[in-house]
């Protein structure tokens, strides 16, 4: 039987991993994620979870352990944030290139310097080109559900995934979370079968140097070149949207909460003004939209639940009636603009859509973003017909 518990995002992530019966965990504590490894260690020590918790001296090693364990067929889990994720950078590419279905919980936190322990999305956005899938959670329930779905999606596609949620804002806030029944999770999630058997009857050497052109192996079979493997990763991510939708629908059939969507939408019917964002900020944006609707505005929220693969076609569809798109980014590509802004513009280009677009950089290093801020920014950008030079910063009083 499922039951509701009032728990924070970190406890939710740990519990989600436990329900997925992960077999190897390697994680290094970092604020605001520390409670995840702490909770998992307790599960392992008490015997509640039959897993190896491997203590490591750094995040780079944590992911390396996960890569090794996943290669030989273990279901693995890790969690990190901010500089810890940055330290994993090299191995992030490796995990995706080796096509390992590693699931990572990421409590989004800003990067130093200067030091911050607080929330923004610069950490995960900086890793968007590593080949990992990325989903962003709106609340703790989504953390639980996304982790369970992540294993099913990743093990089908042989691609790793980051389940991202706002540090402190969700990691440290308790709220009701329905904890799925273990038997239902077991039935939903088949056991992991690796795509290679390294030490089988015919041992293999994995990920050797690849040349620029295909080569014939000892059996005379033509094997892909480096680019051939990289193209396969891209093709898989291009097709991942359908897998994510299917798994989301199946999840709904079993657990009653469907995730057959790549975007989260709120009051978008007839909306000509769209507030576009990601993660927990979508909740605050929904309050802003309620206030704008009160004032007679036709406003709605679109939040990217899945950021990689980027749901360009779905987003284009969702924005097809919009005259104004106001994009709130908790990250910035310095010298340009927020990442979701750039990606949204690119998605709209293909459909020839030309709404006004204003990009606001918000919430860096834990700066609070209230519904009133989002509302005022929307009004300002629409009144100025998108002629506001972008990106604009909210909440910086020098």
């Amino acid at each position, binding site marked *: 039987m499922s039951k509701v518990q009032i728990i924070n995002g970190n406890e939710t992530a740990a519990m989600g991993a436990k329900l997925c019966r992960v077999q190897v965990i390697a994680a290094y504590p970092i604020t605001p994620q520390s409670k995840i490894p702490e909770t998992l260690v307790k599960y392992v020590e008490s015997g509640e979870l039959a897993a190896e918790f491997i203590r490591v001296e750094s995040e780079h090693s944590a992911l390396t352990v996960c890569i090794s364990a996943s290669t030989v067929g273990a279901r693995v889990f890790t969690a990190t944030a901010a500089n810890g994720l940055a330290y994993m950078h090299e191995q992030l590419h490796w995990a995706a290139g080796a096509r390992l279905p590693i699931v990572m919980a990421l409590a989004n936190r800003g990067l130093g310097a200067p030091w911050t*322990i607080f929330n923004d999305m610069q950490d995960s956005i900086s890793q968007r080109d590593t080949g990992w899938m990325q989903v962003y959670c709106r609340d703790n329930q989504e953390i639980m559900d996304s982790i369970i779905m992540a294993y099913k999606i990743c093990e089908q596609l042989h691609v790793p995934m980051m389940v991202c949620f706002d540090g*402190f804002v969700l990691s*440290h*806030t308790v*709220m009701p979370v329905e904890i799925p029944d273990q038997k239902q999770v077991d039935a939903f999630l088949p056991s992991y079968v690796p795509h290679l058997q390294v030490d089988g009857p015919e041992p293999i050497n994995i990920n050797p140097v690849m040349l620029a052109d295909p080569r014939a192996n000892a059996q005379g079979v033509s094997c892909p070149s480096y680019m051939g493997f990289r193209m396969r990763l891209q093709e898989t991510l291009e097709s991942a949207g359908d897998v994510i939708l299917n798994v989301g629908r199946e999840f709904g059939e079993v657990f009653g909460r469907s995730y057959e969507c790549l975007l989260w939408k709120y009051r978008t019917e007839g909306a000509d003004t769209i507030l576009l964002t990601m993660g927990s900020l979508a*909740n605050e944006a929904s309050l802003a939209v309620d206030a704008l609707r009160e004032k007679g505005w036709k406003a709605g929220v679109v939040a990217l639940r899945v950021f990689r693969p980027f749901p360009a076609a779905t987003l284009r569809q969702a924005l097809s009636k919009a005259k104004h798109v106001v994009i709130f980014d908790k990250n910035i590509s310095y010298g340009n603009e927020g990442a979701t802004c750039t990606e949204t513009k690119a998605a709209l280009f293909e459909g020839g859509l030309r709404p006004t677009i204003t990009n606001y950089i918000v919430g860096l290093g*834990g700066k609070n973003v209230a*519904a009133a801020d989002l509302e005022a920014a929307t009004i300002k950008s629409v009144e100025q017909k998108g002629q506001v030079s972008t990106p604009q910063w909210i909440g910086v009083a020098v």
Partner: protein
Amino acid sequence: MVGDLTEEKVINVTWHGRGGQGAVTAAMILAEAAYLDGYQGVTAAPFFGVERRGAPITATTRFSRKPIRTLSPTAQADVVVVLDERLLQTVDVLGGLKPDGLLILNSSSGPEKFCTDMDIAVATSDANSIAKEVGLVVAGTVLINTSLLGAFSKASCLVQMESLEKAIGENFSKQAAKVNIQGARLTYEATRINRDWQLS
């Protein structure tokens, strides 16, 4: 239970205490109790940051008949609970309380002592003495956080004692729960309020 079940009003509670006093735990137990009481939306969070023993800290609890959509810090709370009355001198406690809000204090003095020229209601309870009396002392520290939940229930009428006791029970071992519940009950009884208070 108070209030219309369909109402979306969010009730904001801010807790002021010192690191180690258990304000965060109290905030979270209150959220659990509110959920058991039928509030669909509940959240609780520490003030995000680094916690240090003895330093002033705050925590928040929110509850509503509908799921809660804001995760921003509370600007002005409906109810403020203060675990250490000395904090009134160092922290702008009243600045974070609505003009017609409810202030609940752990104090051996009566509410009159704290009545201001503002329109707020004030409730006090000597949780310190009660916690000592029931044996809520660990390593010389008197633990008053759960006891004050009794004062919250009595003064605000927003969450029933029955739900609070159940929530306390779920957070402690059997023996510890018994003592904590006893502390909350006695504090409930001992709570005095300067006037009847109702959520605006």
